């Protein structure tokens, strides 16, 4: 191969490598990797990864699709890992407009960003039968419940996983 041809190949290779790596966000990649693999026996879909911060993957930067604007998981009681299915999650924007979502068998709920991109702050209420509970604080911009709601007891920087309080 002639020298100038080698140079061209090297240039093309460098440009291609730069293009391939320039869009990678290491922080996002680390956040996705930290979620780990799928649970055994659970297929990728609406019921996978309950209790995880859904918008890490479904927030628009991938790898999950579709993109969601609000998503989370509801459990029956504080500290429980039993999902609360069929509950209604009511999201209320500053104008008082409500969006009502229903939890599935895994306790998961979500809404696509293409259907609704909320104006913050949001208030949240959960209803199931005659039981109702409203979140004590507002959501001001991060709409994966598990960003703040983690584990069973909470800490100085987190609150327990979302629950309604049913026995």
């Amino acid at each position, binding site marked *: 191969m002639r020298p100038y041809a080698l140079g061209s190949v090297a240039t093309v290779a460098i440009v291609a490598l730069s293009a391939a790596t320039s869009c990678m966000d290491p922080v996002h990649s680390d956040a996705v990797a930290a979620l780990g693999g799928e649970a055994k026996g659970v297929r990728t879909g609406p019921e996978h990864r309950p209790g995880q911060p859904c918008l890490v993957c479904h927030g628009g930067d991938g790898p999950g699709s579709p993109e969601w604007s609000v998503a989370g998981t509801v459990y029956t009681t504080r500290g429980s890992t039993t999902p609360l299915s069929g509950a209604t999650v009511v999201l209320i924007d*500053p104008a008082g407009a409500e969006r009502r979502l229903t939890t599935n068998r895994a306790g998961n709920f979500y809404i696509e960003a293409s259907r609704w991109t909320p*104006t*913050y*702050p949001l*208030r949240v209420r959960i209803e199931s039968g005659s039981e109702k509970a409203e979140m*004590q*604080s*507002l*959501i*001001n*911009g*991060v709409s994966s419940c598990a*960003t*703040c709601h983690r584990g069973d*007891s*909470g*800490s*100085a*920087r*987190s*609150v327990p996983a979302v629950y309604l309080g049913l026995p």
Partner: protein
Amino acid sequence: MRALSPAMVRALCMVLPLVVVAAGSFACSTTDSSARESAGVLGRTTFPPVSDVYQRRCGSLECHGSIYRNFRVYGLYGARLSPADKPDAPVTTVAEYDANYQAFLGLEPAVLRDVVAGGGIDAMRLTVVRKGRGDEAHKGGMPIKPGDAADRCVLGWIRSAPDPVACAEAVKSP
């Protein structure tokens, strides 16, 4: 250049360490870690109701309850200052009100001092006011609407005319 005599070298060896130590101690003595910004007449004693409003409207864990925010707000239902406390208990502590007060004053201390000196008329010069009202790009939207109870609470305090009734109303809604 003329070489130093052994006596001069000995003298220098004795004096130089003293000079270095003296310089070092002076260099570190210009900062008083206990010094706090006062921003004029804005009172810490009248701040808790204002702090409660910021906690309610802005202090959720993912927003100004996050350690990644310059204006960091601690308290009930948000981030806690003490690792032993949790968001839902106990109620906001004195140390947390102190921390929130310093966080507010530390955002733009020079501008705040000017605004307070001017009777709070130019409160819109403060980024914290503009962002809360949505007058400046703010990821959290517009948690404080011009003229609402939270707005009256914050502006009243900045104008040295605290309005605890407005503050109490703002915490109850939305």
